[in-house]
C-alpha cells in the first residue's frame, strides 16, 4: 500500500440528498470528490500510490443507490451500486439481456464481480471498460443527479474523450436503464484477451441484430471497446447492415466499414495492427453468427 492514508478523507452519507449536497460544496476544491462504489478500480491506483489525494464519497450507505436492480416491463434498471453478480443471478437478465450476463461473467473473476458496479465501469470512462459495450449495444440510458436536479443521457453520448464524460463534478451516476430487445433478436458478445477471466480485453464487441420476417435488418447495434479513446458504437458498421440481408456482400461491406469506426493504438495489452485485424473478424462474426 503506497498511498498515505492521511492524504485521503472518506465521507459516508446516508442519503442521496446528503451526498449531492456534499458533492456540490466540493466543486473547485483541490482534490475534489471521488465517488466510491465497489472500489475495484479506484483501489488499484490507490494501492499503487498513483491516486491524487482526494475525498472519497462513499456511496455504500445510500439506500436508494443500494437497491437491487429491478424490472419495469421491458426495462431493467440498474442502480449505482448494482454489481455484475446481481445481473448474473437474475434468470430474466440471462433470457432478455444476455449480453449483460456474458460481459459480467468474463469481467475480472468472481471476487471482482461481487463488488464491481456497472455504474463504476461507466464513471471511470476507460476505453477498455469491458462492461460498457454490452450496455451500449442495448442503447442504455444513464441517469445523473445533482443538487441542480436530474437528467438522463444516452450512454452513447456520455463519453466525450479518453476518461472524459459529460458528468459534472457535482453529479452522481444514480441509475442505468436498459431496454430488452424483442424476442428473436440476435445477441452477440465476444471478448478477446490474454485469458478468459481476470484479463482486460484487447478488443471487446457486443451487438444486437433485429430482422424482419424476410431477413432484412431492422435494427443493428454494435459496440466496441479498447479500439479508440472511448468505448463506442460502430456507426458505420451499423449503417452498412441496416435495411439489408446478411449476405456476403453486406458482410464484406460491414467488415470494411469498421476500419472507419475505430482508431486503435499500441499499448500494454495489444497492438494497433492486431486490434484492427481482430475488430474486422469480430464484425464478420457478428454479422454471420
Amino acid at each position, binding site marked *: 500500500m503506497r498511498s498515505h492514508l*492521511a492524504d485521503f478523507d472518506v465521507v459516508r452519507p446516508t442519503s442521496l440528498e446528503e451526498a449531492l449536497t456534499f458533492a456540490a460544496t466540493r466543486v473547485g476544491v483541490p482534490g475534489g470528490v471521488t465517488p466510491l462504489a465497489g472500489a475495484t478500480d479506484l483501489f488499484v491506483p490507490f494501492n499503487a500510490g498513483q491516486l491524487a489525494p482526494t475525498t472519497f464519497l462513499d456511496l455504500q450507505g445510500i439506500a436508494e443507490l443500494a437497491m437491487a436492480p429491478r424490472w419495469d416491463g421491458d426495462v431493467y434498471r440498474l442502480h449505482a451500486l448494482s454489481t455484475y453478480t446481481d445481473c448474473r443471478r437474475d434468470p430474466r437478465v440471462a433470457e432478455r439481456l444476455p449480453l449483460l450476463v456474458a460481459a459480467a461473467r468474463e469481467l475480472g473473476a468472481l471476487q471482482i464481480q461481487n463488488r464491481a458496479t456497472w455504474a463504476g465501469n461507466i464513471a471511470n470512462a476507460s476505453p477498455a471498460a469491458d462492461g460498457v459495450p454490452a450496455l451500449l449495444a442495448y442503447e442504455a440510458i444513464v441517469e445523473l443527479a445533482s443538487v441542480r436536479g436530474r437528467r438522463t443521457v444516452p450512454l452513447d453520448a456520455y463519453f466525450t474523450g479518453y476518461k472524459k464524460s459529460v458528468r459534472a463534478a457535482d453529479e452522481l451516476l444514480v441509475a442505468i436503464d436498459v431496454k430488452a430487445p424483442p424476442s428473436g433478436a440476435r445477441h452477440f458478445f465476444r471478448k478477446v484477451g490474454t485469458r478468459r477471466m481476470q484479463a482486460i480485453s484487447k478488443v471487446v464487441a457486443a451487438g444486437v441484430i433485429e430482422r424482419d420476417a424476410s431477413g432484412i435488418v431492422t435494427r443493428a447495434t454494435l459496440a466496441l471497446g479498447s479500439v479508440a479513446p472511448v468505448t463506442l458504437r460502430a456507426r458505420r458498421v451499423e449503417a452498412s447492415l441496416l435495411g439489408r440481408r446478411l449476405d456476403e456482400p453486406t458482410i464484406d461491406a460491414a467488415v470494411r466499414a469498421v476500419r472507419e469506426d475505430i482508431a486503435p493504438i499500441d499499448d500494454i495489452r495489444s497492438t494497433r495492427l492486431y486490434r484492427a485485424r481482430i475488430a474486422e473478424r469480430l464484425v464478420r462474426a457478428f454479422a454471420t453468427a
Partner: protein
Amino acid sequence: MRLELQLNGHATAVEAHPAKRLLDVLREECGLTGTKEGCGEGECGACTVLLDGQPVMSCLVPACHAAGRTVTTIEGLAGPDGVLHPMQAAFSREGGTQCGICTPGMILAAVAWARDRASAADAGEALAGNLCRCTGYTRIFTAVATALEASRDAHDGAEG
C-alpha cells in the same frame, strides 16, 4: 473510525482509517496474518476473504465497507477444537499447496463455491481469480473435487 464487524464468528471492534485496506486491517489491527498480500491490485486472489459469505479481494476493500458486515478469513474455517474444515483437509491430503501464499485465498474461494454452486459453472470458473505459481493447479482441483465428494457423501449419510 471505529470499525465494528462480525469477524470469524466474533463481534469485533477496531480503530482504523476508513480507507485502509481490509487486508491491512485484518493483518495489522486484528493480528490475522493468514490473509496474504500477493499483487495488491486485485489480480491474484491471495488476499481473498469472504464478505457476507461472498469471496472478495481484500486488497480492494476499504475498511469502511466491512462495517456492520460479516468477514471470514482462513483463521475462521477450522472448528474451535482445531479440526480442519473439510476443504482445508482436502488441500492438505491431496497436496493442493506448496509455498502456501495462494492457499488461504484459494481455500476460501473454493469454500464459497462449495456453499453456493450456482455462483460458477465449474471449479475453473470459481477459482479463476486465484493464481498459483507452484502447483500447476491439478492437485488444487483434485482437492476441491474430493472435498465436494466428501461433503456429498456426508450429506447422503446424514439423510440415510
